[in-house]
């Protein structure tokens, strides 16, 4: 399985001034990925929100949320996906349902949404803006690989990754975007360490644009267990802010061999975990 992750710099996001321009840019990167025979591509977190922002004259964050409507963006990506043999994670978008607004992502293949995932935990800024939380995590099998989507803030909640791993996730797609000071340590404390404690692959795509007055950052990285990465650092590929498309071959045989050297999940202590009050049945 060949996976790719996209990262556009702040000035590139600034140059995108119309929804059509964003769709064109997505198309451009799909073509680049196809040339490299990529099977699955992840676009940055909040790409769908950015799309909506482009058609919204009043660009304050609260206004954007109030008018959240992801349908047009999803339709555009669905249409694009029909022209390319590639699984597309279009980043995240705000999805309204009844009076609730969710940060959501999906996996789109050949014109169809094959998997949807809502963000389960909220950042402080999302809580303050009144977002709602997803309540489940589901997997989808693509080409004999089990895939899960773990979105943005959820990378900091290990219970989400653990549940996905124990459901059998082999690849996690992770569109993200962080607010505040750019801090590499924060990103390591997210998906990097989830990969190490669950030993799946992860394809993370960072948003370096802006929504309303809020600026975001995030590096795009493809992770694997330490034991199977060349530098022993858990990175198969990373943009380092220099590359707009990173690609890596995900080799499940190598992953299993790495797990045999350091098998974290085999030593889970289920009896001990019953001490976790927070997670006991209510």
């Amino acid at each position: 399985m060949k996976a790719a992750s996209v990262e556009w710099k702040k000035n590139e996001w600034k140059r995108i001034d119309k929804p059509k321009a964003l769709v064109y840019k997505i198309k451009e990167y799909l073509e680049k990925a196809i040339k490299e025979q990529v099977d699955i591509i992840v676009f940055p977190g909040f790409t769908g929100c950015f799309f909506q922002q482009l058609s919204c004259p009043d660009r304050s964050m609260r206004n954007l949320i109030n008018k959240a409507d992801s349908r047009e963006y999803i339709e555009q990506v669905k249409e694009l996906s029909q022209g390319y043999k590639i699984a597309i994670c279009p980043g995240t978008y705000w999805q309204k349902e009844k009076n609730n607004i969710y940060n959501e992502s999906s996996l789109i293949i050949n014109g169809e949404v094959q998997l949807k995932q809502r963000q389960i935990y909220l950042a402080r800024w999302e809580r303050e803006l009144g977002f709602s939380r997803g309540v489940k995590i589901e997997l989808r099998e693509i080409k004999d690989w089990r895939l899960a989507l773990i979105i943005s803030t959820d990378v900091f909640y290990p219970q989400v990754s653990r549940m996905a791993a124990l459901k059998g996730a082999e690849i996690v797609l992770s569109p993200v975007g962080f607010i505040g000071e750019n801090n590499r340590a924060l990103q390591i404390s997210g998906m990097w360490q989830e990969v190490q404690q669950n030993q799946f692959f992860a394809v993370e795509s960072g948003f370096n644009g802006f929504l309303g007055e809020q600026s975001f950052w995030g590096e795009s990285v493809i992770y694997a267990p330490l034991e199977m990465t060349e530098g022993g650092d858990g990175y198969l590929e990373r943009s380092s802010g220099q590359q707009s498309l990173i690609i890596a071959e995900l080799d499940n045989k190598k992953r299993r061999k790495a797990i045999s050297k350091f098998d974290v999940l085999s030593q889970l202590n289920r009896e001990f975990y019953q001490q976790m009050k927070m997670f006991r049945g209510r």
Partner: protein
Amino acid sequence: MSVVNIEVLIEKWFNKKISLERIEKYCQQLSIKKRRFPEDISQENIRVSCVQRQIHPVNSIERYIDMLCGFMNQAVKDNSHLIIFPENNFFDLFGVIPGFHCLNQILNKKAAKVKDKEKDEKKEFHLKGNNHFLTTIFKGVAKPIEAGIKRIFSLLAKEYGIYIYTGSYILKEKEAIYNAGSLFNPEGNLIGTQKKMHLTDFEVKIGIKRASKMDVYSLPFGKVVCPICMDATYFETFRIAREIGADMVILPIANLEEYTIWKALRGIWPRVQESYLYGLKSSLNGWIVGMHFTGKAGIFAPLLITEKKDGVLSLSPSYEGNHLITANINIKRLYETREKAEYQEDKNTEFEEKYIEKTYSVN
């Protein structure tokens, strides 16, 4: 000679070499300048020291006590309230076994040679050869070492007027052996003993059992838990620590692997970030019976309350050798930071409902 007989012989030998009388007599001779535990301690000015030390087999219990006192003296000089010793803090005592030094040197040299040639196969080569031998030794030394360590640290805690985590030792209960460590207060009283809950492959192979319960201990300046090494590879340990009210996690380690920063990052550092607790890591390093241990002592906190925003309050400069690292911690500030956390501290009751049953297939 049967295995049981060897075990009994070892136990008798260790009872003789590290007798409580001998320990008490030597500690009296040391004439340590008695220090009172500072009364002005509050949640905002706690000073903790973590020991990083190299294994150095000793031929007598007195030399072992001398080594410990070196770290104690430094911690007291640094005005620490709590000192933490590393995992397997008893390995040096194997030196009292007749002929051990010679055997140790041979095995270490052999392993070092293999290490240079075939890194991956080195570990298997030695563990396969030594499993049974090590189990017998561990069972034999467990009772005398536990008694000896507890007496030594009780006396040192009282004399130095400081809280001490003993580092871990082998605890034998009935016929089962555990990796466990104890906490003593400045009056020299035992506060509690915590067994390890997640084992390494090596520990499983030599028959160590795991525990399934973690206790929290209330100290005048905050609450602590004392999991051991691999326990920090699992977020669940720190989730439970937080739920049972811990402010600090004491974590002794001794990593049976070559050091890299990335391997080290799989442990306590990310756990501290996700759980918003202080992490206090002590470490044992060096060679013994052909095994190579590495690791840095470190004191960690959530990114937001560290100067460089990197989650590190203090870190040993090297993964080998002897170091004592000390830092100030502030529980009040930790609580305030939890209130401000951007990416942690959210709850989702619907997702979390029956999480254990849904995730771990436990009914």
